[in-house]
């Protein structure tokens, strides 16, 4: 023991002598600081949290993909090509030859079929993505099959456009898991779920080395990845909850990329030669919803008036600068069918006259439920101020996100400020939320956003369903344009902003692009010079 104590004492003493010896990050390791406390699992059959999906995007290859090289083009992933039967019900995928998993075992159609079945059987959060194809625990094994070692075939039981089904096959649920490994770690019939939470059995660009909840995730390249090995040797995603700490770490070079800096922190980096800032569009929509169960908000004139009482440009030019831009339709820019239709701007006089027409010349009082963190708080305060100019007194009720969502799902709000992110890269995901409500009872099968605001819309819902199954893509686009206009004009949503993602990184880092959605955030082209 003595022998150990002495060097330890020296080590302690040497601390004072050599203080500035802190390493910059190792050259072949990319260190990303990010708030990752939302991750509860990295099993692609269960993973549905934003940070978790981003990490799984880099670990698991999917049936089809939008690749980092061109994120606007649908290409084969595990599958090389595909065919769709004339009636749009049977999809056949031909897998690429010679693919292997991270452990060197060959990847077959059996693995692909198992992975899709597994999502439906596990019935965790992302299962609804595949449920909409008409798949259930009881029928999925018959409907999804490997017909040859390199051929996967499945049948859908719902009326959906092939482009929508193919887009679903680029989402997290189409990740291909190695069947043998998953089953080898099965416990209590969980298809390997418990084990796969923190291990990987994948064929994508990376394998998972370790995930420590609320602390870090470490990825190392899969040298056999079909597009070639990544440009770095290790990616460490570190949970740094406080953004000011992320900023300091970046300035000191202890991390390479900071993902959660606030607008003023980004601004403070201007002129710093060691750091560069790039902005990428995100796909979250920020909106305020109006519950039409409320007698006043049921009045279309009142809803229109409130849409004229938001200082869209003022917010974007001040506290939202660089993190959001004005976008007043439900499809984010970058999605099929997105438009830049934006009819509203702050116009107090017009709002006042609309309120007078509606019978409220002196305004009224409303409650606004909003999340208690930035930038929700600031947006809520801005709204409170501009609504006040037309006599609409807003009292803000700040709360944790989970409790705001609880209020929303039980329709107990009047006004509610929240954001919405698409589930997969297809317009139907948002249309299905904003423009569908055919069952306005208190216990519907699902609770789309239109339902949460008691906006009962049988005709518009039908248009949404029609758009989802339209085989002709040009026609499909025009259907979505029409739907968006209707929702923006008459709907119970004040659609305000789309997110942008400012990413600050060390100047020697290249190739990191934040994706429009988490399914499009790739680590493999990031390198350090």
């Amino acid at each position, binding site marked *: 023991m003595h022998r*150990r104590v002495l*060097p*330890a004492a*020296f*080590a*302690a003493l*040497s*601390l004072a002598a050599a*203080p*500035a010896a*802190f*390493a910059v*990050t*190792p050259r072949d390791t990319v*260190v990303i600081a990010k708030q990752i*406390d939302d991750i*509860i*699992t990295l099993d692609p059959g269960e993973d*549905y949290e934003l940070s978790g999906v981003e990490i799984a995007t880099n670990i698991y290859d999917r049936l089809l993909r939008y690749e980092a090289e061109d994120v606007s083009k649908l290409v084969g992933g595990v599958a090389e090509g595909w065919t769709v039967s004339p009636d749009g019900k049977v999809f056949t995928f031909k897998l690429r030859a010679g693919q292997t998993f991270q452990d060197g075992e060959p990847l077959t159609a059996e693995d692909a079929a198992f992975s899709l079945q597994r999502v439906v059987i596990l*019935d965790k*959060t992302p299962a*609804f993505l595949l*449920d909409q194809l008409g798949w259930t625990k009881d029928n999925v094994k018959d409907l999804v099959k490997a017909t040859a070692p390199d051929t996967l075939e499945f049948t859908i039981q719902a009326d959906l456009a092939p482009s929508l089904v193919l887009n679903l096959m680029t989402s997290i649920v189409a990740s291909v898991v190695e069947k043998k490994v998953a089953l080898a770690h099965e416990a209590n019939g969980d298809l390997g779920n*418990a084990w796969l*939470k*923190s291990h990987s059995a994948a064929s994508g660009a990376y394998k998972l080395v*370790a995930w*420590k*909840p*609320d*602390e*870090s995730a*470490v990825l190392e390249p899969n040298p056999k990845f079909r597009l070639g090995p990544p440009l770095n040797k290790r990616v*460490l995603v*570190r*949970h*740094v*909850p*406080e953004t*000011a*700490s992320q900023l*300091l*770490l970046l*300035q*000191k070079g*202890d991390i390479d990329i900071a993902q959660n800096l606030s607008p003023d922190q980004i601004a403070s980096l201007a002129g710093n030669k060691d750091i560069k800032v790039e902005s990428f569009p995100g796909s979250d929509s920020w909106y305020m919803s109006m519950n039409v169960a409320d007698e006043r908000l049921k009045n279309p004139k009142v809803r229109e008036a409130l849409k004229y009482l938001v200082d869209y440009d003022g917010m974007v030019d001040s506290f939202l600068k660089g993190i959001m831009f004005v976008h007043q339709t439900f499809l984010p820019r970058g999605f099929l069918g997105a438009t830049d239709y934006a009819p509203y701007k702050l116009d107090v006089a017009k709002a006042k006259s609309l309120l007078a027409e509606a019978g409220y010349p002196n305004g009224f009082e409303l409650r606004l439920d909003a999340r208690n963190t930035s930038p929700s708080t600031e947006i809520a305060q801005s709204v409170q101020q501009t609504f006040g100019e037309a006599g609409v007194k807003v009292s803000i009720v700040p*709360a*944790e996100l*989970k*409790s705001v*969502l*609880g209020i*929303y*799902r039980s329709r107990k709000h009047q006004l509610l400020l929240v954001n919405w992110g698409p*589930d997969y890269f297809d317009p139907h995901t948002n249309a299905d939320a904003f423009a569908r409500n055919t069952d306005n009872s208190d*216990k*519907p*099968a*699902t*609770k789309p956003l239109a339902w949460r605001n008691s906006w009962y819309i049988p005709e518009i819902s039908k248009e949404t369903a029609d758009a989802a199954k339209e085989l002709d893509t040009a026609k499909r686009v025009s259907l979505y344009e029409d739907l968006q206009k209707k929702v923006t004009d008459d709907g119970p949503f004040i659609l305000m902003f789309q997110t942008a993602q400012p990413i600050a990184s060390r100047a020697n880092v290249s190739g990191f692009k934040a994706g429009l959605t988490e399914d499009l955030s790739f680590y493999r082209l990031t390198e350090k010079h």
Partner: protein
Amino acid sequence: MAVRAAAGGGLPWRGVGRRVLRTLVSMVLTFLGLTVVTFFIGRVIPIDPVLAIVGAKASNETYDRVRAEIGLDLPVPVQYWRYLEKVLHGDFGTSVITSQPVLQDMLSVFPATLELSIPALLIGVVFGVPLGVAAAVNRGRWPDHLIRVVSLFGYSMPVFWLGLVGLLAFYAKLGWVAGPGRLDVGYDDIVAPVTGIITVDALLAGEYGVFANAVQHLILPASILGYLSMAYVARMTRSFMLGQLRQEYVLAALAKGLSHARVVWVHALGNVWVPLITVIALTFGSLLEGAVLTETVFSWPGLGLYMKNSLFNADLNAVLGGTMVVGSAYILLNLISDLLYPLVDPRARERP
């Protein structure tokens, strides 16, 4: 009363036995009380634990299934009884956030908090007590004012702000200490966790580089927490000492010709150790509860951060587990204080 009569046989070991029994009963009751309060608070907070698991987009069917799975459809007393049964078998359930058994989570977050709290407490006591004594002795003169200002500052500054300013100065500008986190990236995963306290594990493994790096990361957050503890300990020591210095025995001792230093540091300070031990134990307890804000600023994955996350996500098992750990820590500290009293106060020795 019957118990007292029966046990009061006069033999010393009987007294000890009674004390141990009393302590055990109060421990069990405290634990029960803890679980009851935490459990019922957990059931009335406005966050829906089911939503925390299934997400906002889940169908009603999934929602109802998960609700039944975690037993929320049962009456609350039944839920409580089930929970208690499991806890008695050592099963604290699984955390929603980390998907790991809560017990395992505790074994990783509690050592992180311990690593931060022990140095902080040492700093607090080693500096706080002498400063408090010095302030009391110099009451109303400049050393007193200076010490009071220093401790008032520590008492009233938001720890969040202190942490960020500390990082800005000593990490970003001066480069004297390491930044947020417990280790630099290059030192991660070198030492396998044994105790979970990185400095100790590094020494056990003989990895002095890791040890040095861990200490560099530890210095700043521990000093800041230590400063806050010091402020409290110094204030309390000062007021206890003032009470003693007013007593007649001090005058008598001085009149008898004892040196001023001896009177102050041995006689007067000797008499305030009992309340002071309580203060120190409480300080340690509050450090162990986890300094949420410090842990946030310094990305320190300790108990405070864990509990905060669990609370905000309605992760009831994790909250209950954490509360039990904090509760046990307090009970243990109480026990230790009880054992220490006789060492510093002869009167306490004679009590059975």
